[in-house]
């Protein structure tokens, strides 16, 4: 019935400003997770953040989302002079779907929480785009893990924010579903500024225009690796495989030390 490949429906407004993070510092207790950290997210680029567990990847992402409270300092500026607050959409490893709302009601959650009238037509288009048209009326308990993350992706797209922050959104999925959702995400998020936290080097190289490794205590950012070609990249691409080996070496050296 509905053509899911049709890109004119539910299109996303491209992002036209860079985000600069400078001198960022977050401490929990007496330990600095990171300090003096700089990062630039170019307008419309897809940046991936890799690193060992517990290094502070999620904290950095949550810092950008304005979700870290307490001992925090640093500057977040946007090249268009406006502030970043209320211009980010957040997607976590857990789908965070509300169990009492249907898929469509979950996708429309943002508008409801702001007291706006939800755009039902757009919600339906986005649900179609992630392939959930037949499940739109179902509650999350009836969905598989992959379907739940698709619904979460549609909810993220519904917000149509210039900057999308994703915290290991596909890590709980089986490999096949993960590849499918990576492809879907690469397609529907084109033009947005995206920061994706992952522990999967292949995922980072398939999706990222820039891939950073975050390592050490306090954590520092390594120079970006930039895979060639347009995302989503082929998993068997020799360039990707070579870079994956390089990334694994960097991560392995970090864990060994």
């Amino acid at each position, binding site marked *: 019935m509905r053509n899911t490949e049709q890109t004119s429906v539910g299109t996303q407004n491209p992002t036209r400003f860079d985000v600069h993070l400078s001198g960022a510092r977050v401490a929990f207790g007496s330990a600095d997770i990171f300090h003096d950290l700089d990062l630039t997210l170019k307008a419309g680029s897809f940046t991936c953040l890799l690193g060992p567990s517990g290094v502070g990847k999620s904290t950095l992402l949550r810092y950008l989302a304005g*979700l870290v409270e307490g001992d925090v300092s640093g500057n977040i500026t946007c090249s268009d002079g406006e502030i970043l607050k209320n211009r980010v959409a957040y997607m976590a490893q857990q789908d965070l779907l509300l169990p009492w709302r249907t898929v469509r009601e979950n996708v429309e959650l*943002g508008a409801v929480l702001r007291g706006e009238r939800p755009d039902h037509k757009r919600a339906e288009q986005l649900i179609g785009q992630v392939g959930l048209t037949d499940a739109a009326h179902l509650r999350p*308990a009836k969905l598989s893990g992959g379907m739940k993350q698709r619904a979460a992706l549609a909810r993220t797209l519904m917000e149509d924010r210039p900057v999308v922050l994703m915290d290991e959104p596909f890590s709980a999925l089986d490999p096949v579903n993960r590849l499918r959702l990576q492809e879907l995400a690469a397609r529907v998020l084109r033009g947005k500024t995206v920061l994706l936290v992952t522990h999967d080097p292949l995922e980072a190289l398939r999706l990222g225009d820039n891939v950073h490794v975050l390592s050490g205590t306090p954590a520092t950012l390594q120079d970006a690796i930039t895979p060639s070609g347009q995302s989503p990249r082929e998993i068997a691409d020799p360039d990707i495989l070579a870079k994956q080996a390089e990334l694994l070496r960097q991560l392995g050296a970090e864990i060994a030390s």
Partner: protein
Amino acid sequence: MSSQNNPHTNAKSIPLSERRWLKLARPVIIVVALIATWQVLVIMTGAPKYMLPPPADVWNTLISRHDVLFDHARYTIAETVIGLFAGAALGTLAAIPMALFSPVRFWLMPILLVSQAIPFFALAPLLVLWLGFGLASKIAMAALIIFFPVTVAFFDGLARTETGWLDLARTMGASRWRLLTHIRLPAALPAFASGFRVATAVAPIGAVIGEWVGSSHGLGYLMLHANARVQIDMVFACLLILCAFSITQYFIVDRILRAALPWQPDSLKPAR
């Protein structure tokens, strides 16, 4: 669904219907076992009828004095049900501001705890003195007993909203009020429901205590008088009615709560 699915569903429906049969039979088995134990106790102890009447005598009293029993049961049931809703409403009204505003929490929590330190039995004569012999003092008693479990359960549910949902709502720019009505309240409903279930089970206690202390109606009143006249079969008849009512009330409430909260994990239908 479609006809191709039929063999599949038929194959699965046999164990399901067996389970359903057991589910229906279980209460009957329990009741029969309890009555049998009772009868065995009567025979083994050789207790006189004015100490432990046999089940048959109590059954006869239930039948022959049903008009009196029913007349008094009406009062107890009315007190319990009204008390249940009054207590739950008060508990809800206390839990929401406690969850929303920390100063309210800091001031109200000690008061709540102190209120629990007062033995309710000791309070009953005062309530009768203040509110009279009628329904009001018993409703107040039932409501007081229910108030605490409902408040604590609901407050706990409101305080434990999944942090991921709160983060998401924050990035979406939710107002405090909409966060409450669209996420925190519905998320706390299962906790409220478990508090309400506990309250349903204890509500009749409050009403009966109230009746013991001072009343002219109700099963508690009837029990006290029958006991004084050594009509122990009547006391047992009252107890049985109270039991039957408590269980019925519990199941009705449980049904309503499950229907109202279909997303609760324990009420989900078994997987296909």
